[in-house]
Structures are given as C-alpha cells and as structure tokens.
C-alpha cells in the first residue's frame, strides 16, 4: 500500500514540479509584491509592508472603470452566450438536412484569429469620415441615426464589446452543447412522450438535467474567461484602453506593468490579486450552486 503511494507521488512529481515553479511560486511572489509598499524594480528595494497597494488600486478611477467594465461584460456575456448557444444547439440537433454545413458555419469563429475578427468588427461598426460602417447603414435604413460604436458613447462601445465576446465564445459552447445533447439517450424522450410530457416540460425536466454537467462546465469556464478578457477589447479599441474607457481588469494589470503608466509591479500585483480573489469566490459559489442542480 505504502509502496503504491510512493509510486503515485513519483508519477505526479514532474507535473507537480512544473506547477510549483510556474504557478505556485509566481502566485506567492505576486502576493508578496502586492504587499511591498513602494517597491522599486531597479534597486529591488521597498519601504515597508502593508495594504497600501490595494488601497491605491481600489481608489484608482481607471481600476474602478476596469472593474465595472469587466463585471458588465461578465454579467451580460456569460448568460447570453450560453443561452444562445443552447438555442442554436437545440436547433442543430433537431434538423436533419444541412446539419453539417451549419455545424461548420457556427464553428468558423473558433478557428479565426481574434485580431482578424476584431478587424471585421471594426469595418462593421466603425464610423470614419468616409463611411458610417455597415451596422450604421442598416440602422439608418430603419430610421435610426448613426452611432459611433468604436469611439462614441460608452454604452455603444460596451455593446460592441459584449457582442464581439459573445460571438467569439459561441462556437466552443455550441460544440460542447451539441455533443451533450446528442448523447442524451433518445429512450428518455420516447418515455416522456408516452407519458404525455409537453415539449417544454421535457426540456426542463429531462434535457436540462441531462446536459447539466456540460452546461455547468461552460458557465464556469465562461465566467473565468470573461473575467480574464483583454485581447477582445484590444482588438476592438486598440491598446490605449484607459483612454477609450474600455479597459478590463487584465488590461489594467498589463498597463500597470508595461503600459504608458507602467513600471508599477506592486500595483499590478495588487490588482491581479483582487482579480484572483474575485474569480476564486465566483467559482466557489458556482461549485456550491452546482452541487444542488447538476446531475452526474
């Protein structure tokens, strides 16, 4: 028994070493950085230990803006993208003809480069001196005046960011959900049919519980992914996100390290720790909730 245990640990050692060096150590290091006040990168010195960095970050209007943006993004995109993906997957599994074609079409965004997609969105949404962009042309046709989605009002920019995020994360969710739906034994549907179950009730009482593990997986990874959003915003609004007012938390961390206002590893670490705590809390809540609703 003991020998077996030693063997087990031995097998785990390489992975544990890598995780330790590249994950656990940096995590602790970040925590230390975040507590060292006035840390100087060049001289490797600091004045004292305390929570000043956190206080600074939490009072920084740019950080608060990033926090707000990230939260809005998470709250809007995670439920919407999962919901829409579920609808599309339901549609996909119930059609016979052209199913493969639609599968491919819905999967295309997944294999497309983020920045390329961003460019396409720019063309669709951006207002330039020469053109109002495709979406604005459509809006004009139904009698709504043009809006500058890229450099215009906050809600318009947020709309584009959410739209973009949902569009980018959708294919993966559709992929997971279609396979989850296809793996539900059709006998359950036959049984429900014989019992006179309405379609809605069949969906709520049978389909949803059956695919709940996949759904839950998508919600958790969706939350984490949305909290870590950065490249999407860059693709749409460029690298100076603070100026555009569209910064995200990861964007803030990056800016603090390398951006125009960069060179503040302590502030960056504090912001990163705050992000880490938020993601951890939300994931824990998710896990707790899932225990009640997810059927394995």
């Amino acid at each position: 028994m003991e020998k077996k245990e030693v063997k087990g640990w031995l097998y785990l050692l390489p992975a544990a070493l890598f995780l330790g060096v590249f994950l656990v150590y940096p995590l602790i290091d970040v925590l230390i950085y975040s507590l060292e006040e006035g840390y100087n990168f060049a001289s490797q010195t600091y004045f004292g230990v305390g929570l000043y960095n956190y206080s600074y970050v939490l009072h920084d209007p740019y950080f608060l803006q990033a926090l707000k943006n990230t939260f809005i993004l998470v709250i809007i995109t995670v439920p919407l993208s999962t919901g829409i993906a579920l609808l599309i997957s339901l549609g996909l599994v119930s059609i016979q003809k052209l199913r493969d074609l639609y599968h491919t079409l819905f999967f295309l965004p997944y294999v497309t480069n983020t920045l390329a997609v961003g460019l396409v969105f720019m063309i669709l949404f951006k207002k330039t001196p020469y053109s109002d962009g495709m979406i604005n042309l459509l809006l004009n046709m139904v009698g709504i005046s043009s809006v500058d989605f890229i450099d215009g009002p906050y809600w318009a920019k947020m709309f584009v960011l959410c739209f973009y995020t949902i569009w980018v994360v959708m294919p993966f969710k559709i992929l997971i959900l279609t396979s989850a739906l296809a793996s539900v034994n059709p006998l359950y549907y036959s049984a429900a049919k014989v019992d006179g179950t309405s379609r809605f009730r069949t969906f709520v009482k049978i389909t949803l519980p059956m695919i709940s593990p996949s759904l839950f997986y998508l919600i958790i990874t969706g939350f984490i992914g949305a909290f870590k959003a950065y490249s999407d915003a860059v693709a749409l609004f460029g690298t100076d996100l603070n100026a555009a007012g569209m910064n995200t938390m990861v964007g803030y961390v990056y800016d603090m390290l390398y951006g125009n206002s960069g060179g503040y590893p302590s502030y960056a670490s504090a912001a990163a720790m705050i992000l880490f705590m938020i993601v951890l809390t939300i994931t824990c809540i998710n896990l707790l909730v899932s225990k009640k609703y997810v059927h394995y």
Partner: protein
Amino acid sequence: MKIVLENLTKKFPGRNKKSKDEVIAVNNFNFEIPDGKLIGLLGPSGCGKSTALNLLCGLLAPTEGKIYFGEDEVTNLPAENRGVGFVFQNYALYPHLTVLQNIMFPLENLKGKDKLTKEQMREKALEAAKLVQIDELMDRKPGQLSGGQQQRVAIARALVKMPRVLLMDEPLSNLDARLRLQTREEISRIQKETGITTVFVTHDQEEAMSISDMIVVMKDGVIQQIGEPQKVYDEPENLFVAKFLGTPPINVFTGEIKEEKLWIGSDFCMDVEGVRNQEVYVAIRPEGFVFCQEETPERKLHCCLQAVEVMGRDISVVATHPLLENVVMRAIISSETKVDTGRKEISFELKKNKVFIFNKETEERIYLK
C-alpha cells in the same frame, strides 16, 4: 380493453440508397387481443416484434392498417393520447430523479380536469409502488437500484396512470436467470391484479410460454401462429413454430412418406393414413421418444448413442442420426429407465402425438387423420 389490429403493416425505407429495397418489419397483422389478457409477442431477434409494439404504443406510425383499442380507432392518435403504459427494455428511468419522482412523472403531466394535487399524486405513486413492492425505495435514485428493482420502478411508472394497455419491450432481458424467473411471475401477478391488457415482447420462448394467456409467434414480420401457449406447443402449424418453441429444441429429421408409411432412412416409424407420397421433415419433441431395451424390428428409430445426461428428474439421451437436421438429438426419458451407456446403437419408439410432419418445400404441417 380489447385491442384489434387490421392489416397492420410497417415498412422501413432501405438503408442503402442504391437499392430501393424496403424492409417490411410488420407484415399485414390481423388479430384481436381479448380484454384483460397477457399476450406474448414471440420471435427471433429482428423479426419485427419491437416494431409491432411501437406501433401499438404510437411511437411509430403504421404504413398501412388500423389499430383499435376497444371501439376507438387509435391509428393516428399520438402516443400520449392513447393511454398506454410502456416499459422499455432498458427501463429508461430518469437517472436524475428519485424513484418517487420517476413514478410521479406521468401524473405531473396531467392537465385540465385530470390534474391532481401533490398529495393525490404521492398517494397514487405509493399505491403503484406497493403493487410492485418497491415502496421502501422511494427516495433512491435509479443508479442505486439493482436491475430487478429498476424493472419494478419502470413497471410502476407505466402503471401509475392506470393505462388502458400496458406494453413491455423485452421486460426480462436485462435480468439474471434467477431474477428473471421471479420477475416473470411478478409480471403475471401484477397483470392479474390490475386486469390491464398487457402485451409483452420477448425472444425467449420459455418466458412467453410460462406467463402468457396467448402467444403470437412471429418470423420476418409475418405472424406464424397465434394461440394459447400449450396449444401452439402441441399443434405447431409450421416447422418454424415447432423449432422455435420448446427446450431442448425439437429434433428434426428428413424423412419420406411411401405408401402411407413414414420412413426415416430405412427405419419405418409410423403409419400415416391418407397422406400422399412425398419428402417431409419429421419433427419429434424430446419427450416423444420411448426408449427400447430390446431390439425389435418394427416401428423403431435407430440412433447412435453419444452420451447420457442425468438431470435428476429425467435423463437426456444424446444421440446422432445421419438424417438429423440438428447437430445432435436429445430424448428426454424418465430417470427410472436404465440406459446402458456401453451400447453404441439404441432404438426408440415414437409417441404419435409428439411427432409432427411438415412438407419439405413449404414447411407447412401435414395433418394426420
């Protein structure tokens, strides 16, 4: 509720796109199932018995023909409006719901004037659970139950709405031998207690024979014979039915009728009055042999002894014969008979009512006067 089938036919389009061969799973079924009986649909795998059951249930629509429940035609009625209970082969219990929730599920679908309160539902579910003796397992999930218990839950779920007709698809095939024996008696008991017309599908002839009031033997989508189990066993109408029923299986020989006498090779077996000369199959039930201790030339079937299997109550004599269609033949005789295992050659007399003669081409029964 009596069930009447009229010209019921189900064709499936061919799988292969090039050949347009249709598969006729159910071919022109005409029969009536009397009210309150237990009917066994019996046939080898792929003979269309499950299709027939799905047609009755309404999960499949027939290509032609009509189905009546009592006086009502239900041919085009969807499954949910037929008032049938269905027990699936793999039970199809909802794994995320408890036993109680599973049994209550059909009741929760009731709408309008049939709608029940939570209390009434619980009561009815408990009643159904008591009937199948699982009322102590109500809070378990299906994954925590044994095969036999799951089967009972499935039956309870099918019964809880008091269906007009109960349909069961291979209800015993997922159970081990012992449980199968027990459950089939249980099914018979439940059916008698509720009096619901029940149709079940099986490929196991023993299962069908033991509990059915009536069996329907099918082959390739065509009904071969309908009747009470004993009647079908005693009077098979064709070679297929004769071969399909009975364990050990019936022994089939090729024989010949010459001048109103039945011959198997050079052995003269019995007189067959009024039957013209022809080549025939002679099928003899294992219990149709009488072992002869001494050699007498008249009316004997001579065989080569291979082994004697002692089974307690009876003994089974395993022998070979050059004209035998089976690999070996088995004769079941009383254990009081002494069989000298050293003998190479043995001979049997035949019991006339256990010998069936079939035309060699049509495989239809030739009835003796």
